[in-house]
């Protein structure tokens, strides 16, 4: 296959990725059965009583009252919410998933909370370990394969 033809194919793949991204975003809300952070940010009161499922970054923890303050990312900026019924251990900077009910005054009554990152440092761990994974792939790949500048592509060493 000629390099120009392969380049055309790669451009086509790029366009397909863009197309999928547009299709996905256009259909996201239809396939997400809960009010999103954007929907709550736009008209919070109309969603009071609805079930919701949100992802947020922990800002403050009140262990006595089993509540945490979270920020949910929305298209209009972060939305602050207070989540009640949080028994799990989590630190400010951590990340949680909250499945529960929208209550007045930016409160959520959690039925289930999953602590994704117990603290901000969990993110450092994930990125650090991922970097090791990326380096491992690159090193192992280039031990067996090389870039052929004449054929403009990877070939076996």
């Amino acid at each position, binding site marked *: 296959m000629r390099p120009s033809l392969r380049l055309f194919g790669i451009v086509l793949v790029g366009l*397909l990725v*863009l197309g*999928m991204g*547009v299709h996905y975003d256009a259909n996201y809300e239809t396939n997400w059965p809960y009010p999103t952070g954007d929907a709550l940010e736009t008209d919070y009161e109309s969603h009071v009583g609805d079930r919701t499922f949100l992802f947020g970054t922990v800002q403050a923890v009140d262990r006595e009252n089993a509540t945490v303050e979270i920020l949910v990312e929305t298209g209009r900026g972060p939305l602050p919410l207070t989540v009640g019924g949080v028994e799990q251990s989590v630190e400010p900077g951590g990340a949680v998933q909250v499945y529960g009910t929208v209550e007045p005054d930016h409160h959520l009554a959690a039925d289930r909370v999953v602590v994704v990152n117990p603290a901000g440092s969990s993110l450092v761990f994930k990125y650090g370990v991922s970097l090791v*994974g990326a380096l491992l792939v690159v090193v192992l*790949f280039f031990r067996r394969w090389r870039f052929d500048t004449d054929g403009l*592509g*990877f*070939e076996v060493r």
Partner: protein
Amino acid sequence: MAELLTHVLLVYVLLTVAGWRIDAITDRWVPIGMAGAAIPDLLKVERLVDERILEGLLGVPFSYAPISSLGGVLVVAGGLTLCFTESRRRVFGLLVAGGVSSLVLDGLRMYADGHAGFWLYPLWWRPPTPNLYVTSDPRVTVVAVLAGACVFLLDRYVFGTAQ
């Protein structure tokens, strides 16, 4: 998603062990599968080029999320395959196998409402999840590293081509 090291080590283990039985899977093919395992993690490109920049250029809402899905793996693997000058069919197969293994692993993660992310897009938007782990759980990484080390040693000294 689970961190990238666990994703690539899972494929290393699977392909290396498969290579003990299947002659066609030699050392040169294992890194191709491992590279495929990294395809869903290309979603991290959003840290470099924000979605809003692309939305501004396209003039319509856009999301990188499909890259970390079945549809995204198939398309991106196709693009990567075109960067090879030989054995493209096998390269594509291994890239897809690696990518799908990462998606399956991510499909086992915990979600508070019991349904996984959009990893089977565009076929199935939110399949159920068995809620096995969270991504920051270091025990998952430890198991992956131990399994990878065991297979490396077995491959080197017991089953591998060196024997």
